[in-house]
């Protein structure tokens, strides 16, 4: 290295230090937390008015200042549109948005609940944590009791029955019974292990179809294969499928099948490991040559991989090229390829939709597997076979959403997507009473825990969570112009239907939430709120420097 090189690096280091030398503003203790709270209050005030069937709509100016606007009752949309001027308040808003977004991502719903809960925990936290308390201990206890709350939610949850599925779907589709019927029908047909996708219909009708398909827990190997950038998916219709477990290290190995595919402008999905060279070559051809293909690696590992690949090959009608059986990939011909009506390769999973109905080969394979399952004693093996049977027989539903105009179709599409997600969550973990009642039951349980002797920190944690659990129900009632005391003043009062203004049983009235949604909203709220409670110093960029 020459002298000038060294000098150059020295200057660079100096420069880097310079660039990070931005003056900061510091906020401490009460003052800082007060600002965080005022940020939280602002965002939650905007979001929480949308909660419940009597929730209000929020009007949002379009971000690009072109005069467009959004009218919505969706918590996430409201939350994501908010940015505040004060940097500390804005930090609080970003944290809340994070809780909301995480809930939406895992459970598909419950963002408003998450925000309401976060606000409640933080506010009650500020009230109940006095100078005598050790904040770290209180937060620790909050985390401990939040597990009790989750357990309580799980305990009070119910498995989903057919009629309830309809309710879950209708509620999540904003109380649209017709859409609820279509969605729950689709789910009833595909069964618990099945998958339902949402598509745009070509006409104004909304309907569901159920096709045979398999799900593979592997995504595309290169981003360049993506054809649908909105969902980050590679969608291939009417495609050929190559199934092999040996690594394709040279593109010329599969030249014999590429030729007819390219010349016949067909599509190809390669299920098999490709060396990075081959992936790059394929991706370059997709981008520059307009080829339609995708590559995913085989699912699972070891012997399980071998079995799964056999299943896939069988169900798409392909020959399985395996190292283990000494096949030579160079000898592959068009006849060895399988075929699927549609392949949707996402980042993490791929869905292969088959055209043919259950063939005889698949049926015999399922019979064999069932036989095998009854012969084995190992639990993990039995479960694995269950998965295989599900994937072989598993069907995939598609809901085609139609509308008379683009706007209507888009609006309906979003609702159906939400509802499908909610139904999936409900099927996965069951359902709880809606309208905030599930968390209210947890409040009663926490209330009873007060009788045991506790130290002041645990006591404070209990109070915080107990009051926070009431908040969603309270907010839903407030939005309907009622109050908690008015509706539930009698200890033995039944659940209250805010929409129809009658008392009854939430399950019977069809007011239910997926457990996963409520659980996630609560967990994320606790996580963000406790972070805010323990915050003591806040560092922000100074927005303006006074000279």
């Amino acid at each position: 290295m020459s002298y000038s090189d060294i000098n150059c690096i020295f200057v660079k280091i100096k420069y880097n230090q310079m660039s990070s030398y931005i003056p900061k503003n510091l906020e401490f203790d009460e003052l800082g937390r007060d600002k965080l709270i005022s940020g939280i209050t602002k965002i939650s005030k905007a979001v929480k008015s949308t909660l419940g069937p009597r929730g209000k709509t929020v009007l949002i100016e379009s971000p690009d200042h072109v005069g467009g606007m959004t009218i919505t009752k969706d918590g996430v949309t409201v939350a994501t549109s908010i940015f505040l001027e004060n940097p500390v308040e804005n930090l609080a808003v970003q944290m809340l948005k994070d809780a909301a977004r995480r809930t939406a991502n895992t459970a598909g719903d419950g963002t408003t609940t998450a925000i309401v809960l976060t606000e409640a925990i933080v506010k009650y936290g500020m009230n109940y944590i006095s100078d005598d308390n050790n904040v770290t201990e209180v937060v620790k206890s909050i985390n401990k009791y939040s597990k009790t709350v989750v357990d309580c939610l799980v305990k009070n949850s119910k498995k989903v029955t057919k009629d309830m599925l309809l309710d879950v779907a209708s509620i999540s589709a904003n109380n649209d019974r017709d859409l609820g019927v279509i969605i729950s029908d689709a789910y009833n047909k595909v069964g618990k292990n099945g998958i339902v996708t949402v598509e745009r219909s070509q006409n104004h009708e909304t309907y569901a179809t159920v096709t045979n398909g398999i799900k593979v827990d592997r995504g595309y190997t290169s981003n360049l294969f993506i054809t649908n950038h909105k969902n980050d998916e590679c969608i291939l219709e009417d495609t050929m499928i190559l199934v092999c477990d040996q690594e394709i290290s040279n593109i010329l190995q599969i030249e014999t099948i590429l030729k007819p595919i390219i010349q016949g402008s067909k599509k190809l999905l390669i299920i098999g490991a490709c060396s990075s060279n081959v992936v790059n070559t394929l991706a370059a051809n997709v981008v520059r040559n307009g080829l339609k293909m995708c590559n995913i690696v085989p699912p699972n590992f070891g012997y399980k991989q071998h079995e799964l690949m056999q299943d896939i090959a069988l169900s798409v009608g392909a020959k399985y090229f395996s190292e283990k059986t000494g096949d030579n990939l160079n000898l592959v011909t068009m006849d060895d390829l399988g075929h699927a009506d549609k392949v949707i390769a996402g980042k993490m999973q791929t869905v292969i939709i088959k055209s043919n109905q259950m063939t005889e080969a698949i049926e015999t394979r399922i019979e064999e597997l069932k036989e095998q399952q009854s012969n084995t004693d190992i639990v993990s093996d039995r479960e694995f076979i269950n998965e295989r049977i599900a994937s072989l027989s598993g069907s995939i539903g598609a809901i085609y959403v139609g509308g008379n105009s683009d706007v209507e179709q888009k609006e309906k599409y979003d609702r159906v997507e939400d509802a499908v997600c909610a139904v999936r969550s409900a099927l996965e973990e069951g359902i709880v009473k809606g309208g905030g009642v599930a968390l209210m039951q947890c409040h009663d349980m926490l209330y009873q825990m007060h009788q045991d002797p506790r130290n002041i920190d645990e006591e404070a944690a209990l109070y915080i969570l107990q009051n926070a659990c009431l908040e969603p129900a309270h907010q839903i009632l407030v939005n309907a112009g009622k109050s908690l005391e008015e509706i539930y003043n009698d200890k033995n009062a039944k659940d209250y239907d805010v929409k129809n203004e009658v008392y009854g049983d939430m399950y019977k009235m069809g007011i239910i939430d997926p457990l996963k949604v409520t659980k996630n909203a609560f967990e994320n709220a606790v996580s963000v709120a406790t972070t805010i409670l323990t915050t003591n110093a806040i560092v922000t960029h100074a927005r303006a420097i006074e000279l």
Partner: protein
Amino acid sequence: MRPVGKYIIIETVTEEVRTSSGILLSQSDVEDFRYKKGVVIKPGTDVTVIEEGDGIYYDKNAGHTMLIDDRACTIIQERDVVIVL
């Protein structure tokens, strides 16, 4: 300027390589092949079969590249050439 004896001055050809199926090979795929494509700038005094301007395939490990009149030229021997196009 003229190469002596069996030496040949060539220039390498970089081009997009497509297989008969029409698939475009990436540069790293092409470099995996043992033989490279080139064009003869000047054959040596004793070279008989190869003429100026011929397209050839030659062993990629043979010869060295140097600048002659600001032009990157590769100098190989006649026996490194495997195919005349």
